[in-house]
């Protein structure tokens, strides 16, 4: 662990106890089985709001506590451990970051208090294809006398069905692939012309495809200045990548703990299977990946809080390293548990399915390896 302040330690311990008590993986399983298509349990979300988690990144003047990304990451890690479903990442981290980095005072006043009290769920709508390619944004924003007409499609939008607002990346000029010409809009989800279609993803969370057909928005919907929002979008995305890396770390750490526990209890051939060197060495390799992933995630969270210059490098590093750990660990979770790991009654499958969705979110390892190389100048 990074050296935490007293307050951070308190919040981390509180989050750890709360998820196990109030939002364990069994409650996610119940949500999946009893309320298909439901993003999260409103009562659970309300408890998180009541504990102040939804306002951790928001300035105090809007009702938040402004405790920073490391603190937020500590909570996301605990949620990741139990696969707790909530809009905390999508709205309280990504949505709030987008508003704070790109929005004006009027937009702050209009929505940040809602993010804090849980009444607003603000989600980023970015991807348009099966790949994360921010500069390939094609959704058309055509200027009119009093605003813009939006036409096109967004997909893989997290909390897409539950969101009250979208932060939308659209193209006001140029062609897909150009960094120039990308603009951000803040659009209410119930705006005329937006059709939302739920995606039945393997992790049973709320993802949606959004179709925009002649959606008219006023100029006041612009988040930042038109046409040159690529760099602020990258800043928002880096915070999202680092935040989701914290959640992924928690998911992978829990998979590690489950596997280690099984290695110590499962008996075969007259011995505990953890006494077999082939398995002990694999556990050691996973432990090493876990420690190195934690180093990267914590360094990245701290870099955001310190407004360091190397946030982009650390974002790709963290997403990539923890991505490797989660990929390997989710596979080992199934393999080492053997047949029981293949059954739906056991939780391993829930972790594996969630792992692949997280890997694909905000750029997979191939994306970030390429980006890291570019950032390092080769």
């Amino acid at each position, binding site marked *: 662990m990074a050296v935490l302040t007293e307050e951070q330690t308190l919040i981390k311990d509180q989050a750890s106890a709360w998820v196990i008590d109030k939002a364990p993986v069994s409650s996610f399983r119940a949500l999946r089985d009893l309320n298909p298509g439901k993003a999260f349990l409103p009562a659970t979300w309300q408890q998180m709001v009541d504990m102040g988690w939804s306002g951790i990144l928001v300035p105090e003047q809007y009702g938040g506590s402004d405790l920073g990304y490391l603190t937020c990451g500590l909570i996301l890690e605990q949620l990741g451990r139990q696969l707790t479903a909530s809009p905390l990442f999508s709205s309280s981290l990504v949505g709030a970051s987008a508003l704070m980095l790109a929005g004006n005072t009027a937009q702050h006043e209009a929505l940040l208090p809602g993010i804090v009290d849980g009444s607003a769920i603000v989600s980023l709508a970015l991807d348009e294809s099966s790949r994360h390619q921010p500069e390939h944004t094609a959704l058309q924003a055509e200027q009119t006398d009093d605003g813009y007409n939006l036409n096109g499609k967004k997909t893989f939008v997290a909390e897409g069905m539950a969101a009250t607002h979208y932060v939308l990346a659209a193209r006001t000029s140029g062609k897909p692939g150009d960094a120039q010409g990308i603009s951000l809009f803040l659009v209410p989800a119930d705006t005329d012309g937006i059709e939302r279609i739920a995606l039945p993803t393997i992790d049973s969370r709320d993802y949606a495809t959004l179709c925009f057909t002649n959606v008219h928005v006023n100029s006041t919907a612009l988040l930042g200045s038109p046409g040159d929002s690529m760099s602020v979008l990258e800043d928002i995305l880096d915070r999202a990548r680092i935040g989701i890396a914290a959640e992924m770390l928690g998911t992978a750490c829990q998979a590690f703990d489950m596997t280690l526990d099984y290695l110590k209890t499962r008996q075969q051939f007259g011995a505990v299977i953890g006494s077999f060197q082939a398995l002990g060495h694999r*556990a*050691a390799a996973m432990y090493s990946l876990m420690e190195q992933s934690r*180093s990267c995630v914590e*360094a990245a969270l701290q870099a955001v809080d310190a407004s360091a210059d190397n946030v982009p*490098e650390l974002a790709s590093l963290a997403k990539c390293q923890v991505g490797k750990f989660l990929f390997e660990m989710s596979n080992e979770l199934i393999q080492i548990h053997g047949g029981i790991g293949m059954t739906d009654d056991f939780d391993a499958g829930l972790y594996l399915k969630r792992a692949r969705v997280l890997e694909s979110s905000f750029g997979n390892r191939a994306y970030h*390896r390429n980006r890291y190389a570019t950032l390092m100048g*080769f």
Partner: protein
Amino acid sequence: MAGDFESSVRDWVAANLPEALAGARIDMYGVVSGDQAVKDAFDLWRQRLAAQGWGAPTWPREYGGADLTDAQAKVVSRAIAKAGSMNPIPYLAGMGVTMVGPTLLEYGTEVQKARHLPGMASGAVRWCLGLSEPNAGSDLASLNTRAELDGEEWLLNGQKTWTSGADKSQWCGALVRTDRTVAKRNGISFLMLEMDQPGIDTRPISLIAGESPFCETFFTNAKARKDDLLGELNDGWSVIKRLLQHERQSQTNAPATSTTAEPLQDAAKRYLGTNADGTLTDSDLRSRLADHLMDTAAHELTIARIMTDARGGNVEVSATASILKNSATDVAQGHSELMLEIMGNQGLGWEAGEYSEEEARTVRQWLGGKAMSIYGGSYEVQKNIISKNILGLPETTQKG
């Protein structure tokens, strides 16, 4: 006062460092390369340092030292380094100044100290250490070389290996078995003996990276004086434990390896070239290079995290640190393999000439680096340590 000492040291170095030594290269044995004038200047420099007691500056004057504190000794070595030279005596003395000497100061008799220490402190006598044996590596206490008392002499028989500098040394400190009837650690003694005698044969060990300082050393009725037993009879294990502490101490003080090496990505661009958009022409190598650089960053961030945690009094430090030996090995060996691949056919040269000095050196480093996953607890031993001591998995069974 400290400032006075520092300036007096600086003045002495300025007045006594021979000009002919400027820019001379001194190797790991403390041997200078150059013409006779350089060699003469070098010997003069050694004698002047020895006369000052600065070959082993913290030792008592009566044994060739200068009675300096550790801090003062650092001032001396810094002043010499600043003047662009080095103190060759610790290198000329082999294992003498750094390991055998400090142990002698603690365990030796007056006669032994007076007999052996001045030769070390002046750099006149080079020492080696006979510790490891073919069947006693990590498990040193299993050693088999035996010594039996024959009148006023010990007779030694057996084989040592990895004896660094044995073929160049005048004296040897050897760990030998003097009692076979007791538990293995309780029957070991530490003897000092001359290397130039009929009973000793040394054979240099060539490594895959070429020449090495290591030798095999054979004892066939080799002789040691009865009073050259260091410490009590059969208490050699205490002596060696202390001596190995001095070894670790000297390694900790060793200068860090060069950090000025060209970054891999720069070397890759130089050898392979880039596309119009600045990316490496070999896209496969490019992604593996990015992977390696990220693994390296993760390793370095883990070291930084452990250091921060240690300051915060975190008890989980040693658990995290247990992964570092293997991750350091992965990073170093991965670096060498990538560098070799980057150099392509230019990374296959054994000697400089048709290949550049740098290319040949890189190849030797790649070969030498294979030792990293073997020494100090092999890669596999490290994984055993993690799985048992850190993760609490049970002792290995043979099944499965």
